[in-house]
């Protein structure tokens, strides 16, 4: 009898709280988006499942002694996002950007989404229920960088209590890039601009591809060392691939290592989707601000490209400016697709890869700025 009562009191039904149930439903929504809608499934599937597991009462998987508690250590130490960034670096080809370095300016312009959102988050504090500190505002703003590991890295340093919501917003909006960007791109460009064909890119040699990551890490070290962990690990991965002398390391960084860390990172992010942290007015603010950040970043990139097209000797299709938000390679594909609608023979993909990878550098630099200015 005693045992039966003990058992009933140990069921989830007895212990469930309303907020936990809602958070599990959030987890299911994330799984639905990942599986049925194809929203960044590599991250949202483990995040959604992590949300479910961490909100199971009694099981205590996020308490000391639980697996999610230990896995979260890898985020707290900053190790998981940096290892993913190394793997992404190994997958990245800087060739198109090196062939047309001006496109770096598009990657810079699109980061305006970050800083405008930072201001927006602080302005939102006028709304009752919203009360973002400077650190929290900065952590939210980095969603505008459209770069998952960067957002998680910055959030884990500045506002770990918002990590779950920020990561979910970042990856969701990255998945929504094909829906968010095209209307903005069409609104800001004329049909003629969208038809612009660009000159073919020169071939970039191996030596340049090897020297670039080294140059980048040095400049970061000299000027913005707070961005050095992100930029440095990215450049390490890129150098492993470009140098061609450590292919087995490069392949492992791009495959098994990044896969293992992705599973662990997703589960740990999910473990931060607790009711107290997520079911707040702030989360609504974060979701709203994230959408605004993407829109502003896209617009800034397109406008910058229009300006550059006016002053450039070679034609620049403004659509590739939208790829400056990063979200590699989704944003570049969107630029390509919108371009094809106006001119079916105009393949912008390679041209858009330049601002696209520039956007990754840009958001890592912006992350460094935030980490160094906000204490």
């Amino acid at each position, binding site marked *: 009898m005693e045992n039966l009562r003990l058992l009933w009191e140990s069921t989830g039904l007895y212990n469930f709280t309303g907020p936990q149930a809602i958070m599990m439903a959030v987890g299911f929504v994330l799984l639905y988006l990942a599986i049925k809608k194809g929203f960044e499934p590599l991250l949202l599937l483990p995040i959604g499942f992590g949300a479910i597991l961490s909100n199971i009462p009694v099981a205590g998987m996020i308490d000391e002694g639980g697996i999610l508690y230990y896995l979260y250590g890898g985020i707290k130490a900053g190790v998981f996002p940096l290892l993913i960034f190394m793997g992404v670096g190994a997958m990245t080809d800087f060739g198109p950007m090196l062939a047309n370095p001006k496109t770096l*300016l598009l990657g810079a312009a699109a980061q305006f989404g970050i800083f405008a959102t930072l201001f927006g988050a*602080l302005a939102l504090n006028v709304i009752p229920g919203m009360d973002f500190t400077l650190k929290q505002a900065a952590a939210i703003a980095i969603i505008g960088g459209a770069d998952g590991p960067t957002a998680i890295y910055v959030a884990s340093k500045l506002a770990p209590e918002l990590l779950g919501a920020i990561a979910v917003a970042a990856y969701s909006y990255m998945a929504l890039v094909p829906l968010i960007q095209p209307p903005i791109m069409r609104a800001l460009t004329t049909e003629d601009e969208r038809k612009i064909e660009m000159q073919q890119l020169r071939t970039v040699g*191996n030596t340049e591809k090897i*020297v670039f990551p080294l140059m980048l890490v040095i*400049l970061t070290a000299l000027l913005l060392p707070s961005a050095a962990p992100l930029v440095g690990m990215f450049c390490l991965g890129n150098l492993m691939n470009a140098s061609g002398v450590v292919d087995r390391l490069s392949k492992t960084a791009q495959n098994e290592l990044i896969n293992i860390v992705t599973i662990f990172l997703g589960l740990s992010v999910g473990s931060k989707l607790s009711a107290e942290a997520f079911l707040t007015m702030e989360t609504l603010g974060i979701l709203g601000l994230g959408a605004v950040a993407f829109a502003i970043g896209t617009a800034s990139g397109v406008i910058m490209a229009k300006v550059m097209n006016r002053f450039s000797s070679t034609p620049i299709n403004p659509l590739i400016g939208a790829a400056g938000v990063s979200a590699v390679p989704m944003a570049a594909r969107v630029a390509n697709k919108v371009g094809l609608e106006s001119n079916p023979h105009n393949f912008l993909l390679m041209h858009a890869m330049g601002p696209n990878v520039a956007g990754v550098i840009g958001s890592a630099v912006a992350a460094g700025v935030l980490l160094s200015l906000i204490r």
Partner: protein
Amino acid sequence: MNEMLSSGIELMLIGMAIVYGFLAMLVLAIGAMSSFVQRYFPEMPGSHPALTQHGEDPGTIAAISAAVHQYRKKYQKN
């Protein structure tokens, strides 16, 4: 409150200035690097200068395959 907003504006201006400044400088640096590399270390198309490893010259490979061949022959006879 007002103080926070003004520090928000300040951050926005400084932040964008740095991002722009850094990436603009990178544009110049890439330009300089590319012309330097193309002038002094021109590459044949298709060449992979990084892939030549010492100790792996054709002679060695021939030797290895010969040795393996011999070894295998021995093994078959057993």
